[in-house]
């Protein structure tokens, strides 16, 4: 801070303005203890982080945490370009865990107790590592998420139709939601977020193994069955066409907007939307999260989550390590999870349990459903989430399935094209 004051004074008193500007540019790197954090939020994650950062600053004089709150789209589209150009932030909150791993900074030399990290984040640390043999610490999962359905309970009650039970199949849910939609004049029964990640859960439930014997991405009959069913549900009006059919390419679109407007009976989204649902739906209607419906092979969703990662573009690796170490402490992880209504990825905090004082009854119940749901996740779902090139299957799935939905190509052609696009994407990424 003293340096900044000196610098400001210099600018004021300098007779030569140009010299002062040059001095400022030269002086900037001296304030290396500034940590730039790129943060996106589904609910209030960045606000809670800002409060924790203030506490960190108070404990570590000379280090300033600057939080840049950006839309999720910026994390997806701009951050990779910035990192590739070598001009990224010091820390980022992101979801493409393996895809960007080559840009992560190993902070293990800067954390106080490596064993603490291994003991509490051991299950998810490999998700951030560039290779299986790597043992570095690159950051930690700020929250664990799980994909799963939300249901408009009020519509079920109005239609006087019972909700399917915990082990119900996708067909049973589709049938029930369809009857509710018909009885209540709701535009559509169901919609899934426009995302290959969301699609993967039902696909694995229908028997998709995702990987072949050699561990490479592969499409099988299970995946094809899901594509066929999903397209058919769009053609017969079960699914709201606006979500997948309303866009081109592989761009993301969520279903919460349509759900909160009462245009859908059921959606497939994920636990990270709980806060938003609570905030935006309010008392408009009753909603519940339900366990993932079953297919012939499993009743699984997809795990996921966002991670705080240190980036190689930083000029203050030590301070970055200190800040992440601070954020990873059990008290802070518990506070973050509690105030953001998220599921923590910290084994110790999970064991102790998290209280969610700001969560209403619906949100509390939903958090319970998702937390217990993590036990039902299929191994293939974990494997896909941890796979470095998982985007290679997820992105073409969105593009090609949409083409099949709007009638540009057939289901068989869509599957063939997903396979070809996937191979091409992996080939290009490996170059």
């Amino acid at each position, binding site marked *: 801070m003293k340096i900044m004051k000196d610098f400001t004074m210099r600018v004021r008193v300098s007779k030569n303005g140009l010299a002062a500007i040059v001095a400022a540019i030269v002086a900037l790197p001296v304030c290396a203890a500034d940590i730039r954090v790129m943060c996106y939020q589904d609910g209030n994650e960045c606000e809670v982080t800002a409060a924790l950062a203030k506490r960190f600053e108070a404990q570590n004089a000379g280090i300033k945490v600057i939080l840049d709150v950006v839309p999720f789209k910026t994390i*997806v*589209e701009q951050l*990779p*370009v910035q990192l*590739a*150009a*070598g001009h990224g932030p010091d820390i980022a909150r992101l979801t*493409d865990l393996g*895809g960007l791993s080559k840009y992560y900074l190993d902070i293990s030399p800067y954390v106080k107790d490596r064993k603490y990290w291994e003991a509490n984040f051991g299950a998810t640390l490999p998700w951030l590592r560039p290779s299986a043999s790597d043992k570095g610490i690159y950051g930690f999962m700020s929250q664990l998420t799980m994909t799963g359905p939300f249901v408009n309970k009020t519509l079920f009650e109005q239609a006087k139709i019972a909700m399917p039970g915990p082990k119900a199949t996708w067909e049973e849910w589709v049938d029930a939601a369809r009857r509710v939609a018909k009885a209540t004049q709701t*535009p559509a029964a169901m919609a899934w977020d426009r995302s290959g990640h969301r699609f993967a859960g039902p696909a694995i439930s229908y028997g998709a193994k995702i990987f072949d014997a050699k561990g490479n991405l592969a499409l099988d009959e299970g995946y094809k069955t899901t594509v066929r069913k999903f397209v058919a549900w769009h053609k017969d009006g079960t699914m709201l*066409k*606006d979500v997948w*059919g*309303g*866009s*081109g*390419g*592989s*761009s993301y679109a969520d279903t919460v907007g349509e759900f909160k407007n009462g245009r859908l009976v059921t959606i497939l989204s994920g636990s990270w939307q709980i806060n938003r649902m609570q905030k935006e739906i309010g008392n408009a209607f009753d909603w519940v999260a339900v366990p993932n419906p079953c297919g012939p092979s499993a009743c699984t969703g997809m795990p996921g989550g966002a991670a705080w990662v240190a980036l190689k573009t930083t000029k203050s690796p030590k301070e970055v390590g200190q800040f992440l170490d601070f954020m990873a402490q059990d008290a802070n992880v518990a506070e973050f999870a509690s105030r953001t209504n998220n599921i923590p990825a910290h084994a110790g905090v999970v064991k102790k349990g998290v209280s969610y004082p700001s969560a209403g009854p619906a949100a509390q119940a939903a958090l319970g459903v998702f937390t217990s749901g993590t036990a039902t996740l299929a191994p293939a779902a974990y494997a896909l989430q941890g796979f470095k090139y998982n*985007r*290679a299957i997820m*992105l073409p799935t969105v*593009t090609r399935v*949409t*083409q099949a*939905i*709007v*009638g*540009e*190509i057939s289901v068989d*052609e869509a599957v063939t*094209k997903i396979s*070809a696009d996937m191979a*091409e*994407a992996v080939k*290009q*990424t490996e*170059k």
Partner: protein
Amino acid sequence: MSVFSSLLGFCFNLFEPVFRLGQKWLGASRIGWLFVGPNLVVIGIFTFLPIIINFVYAVTGGVNLLPTQRPFTGVENFSILLECRDYTDLQTCRSDIFWRSIFNTIKFSVIQVALMLFFSLVTALVLNRKIIGRGFWRGVFFYPVLLSPVVVALIWKWLLQSQGVFNAGLVAMGGSPMDWLLDRHWAFFWVVVVSIWAHMGFYTLILLAGLQAIPKDVYEAAEMDAAPPSRVLLRITLPLLMPNLIVVLVLVMIRAVQSFDEVFVLTGGGPGSATTFIVQYIYLTGFAEQIHLYGLAAAASLILAIGLMALTLAQLRLSKAGDAGKVKK
């Protein structure tokens, strides 16, 4: 005014010693470079350098951004884009969406250019007549040109989306809502309509200026000869308006090929790839998709550049042919 001129002259004269010195050093024939130099540097950095970099990306592969980290792949990107087992079936192409985007661009250009020329001409002809509130109507037709393309697209999106104004109207009249933006044929139709609505005013203005430049005595002579209106239009108005029509044709054509902003906001290139045009394909491939295939995007942009060059050459030939026709007459 004279004080200002004198001041300006004085300022310019201040440079004279510098120019004299420059001329002495460089010689009279080279002094010109001193004047065009700054512009050349700017154009070089912002136009030619990106073209060269684009070539570099087009012949390298992978997902890395820095050219030094990209392996040389020769013409592989072009072959990925252009390879098809059967050129009559887009589905057999390795990059079928690239071909679909080209096909969509050509279809859009042909339809939009024809309709844009027709409606701009008709509007200009109407607005050139002594109608009530002529100034107001000219303003009305020009107004959309002043709007940002994003605003235009958002306005139309509100009108056309499932719960939009058009569907509300249909439902109020006892009809059923339509998939204006979810059906690929309707989506394409509306993209053409919105594009014409947004830009027609500008081209109408050019044609209106052309119409007003036609000498009145030619029309008076035609009136004295009792020429019917259709004959006046075909034999006087259109031939004399031809230079303006060619300008409009070229501008509309180039704009159509480069279409991006309105379409991207209105439909996102969808549904499926129904309204994905070549510029959008380049953007999606290089930047919007989470796996950034810069090489493929660069190769596609070079192919687009070749297409645009061909269009420009055709326009030059057309202009020359027009000029030659004028000389003959």
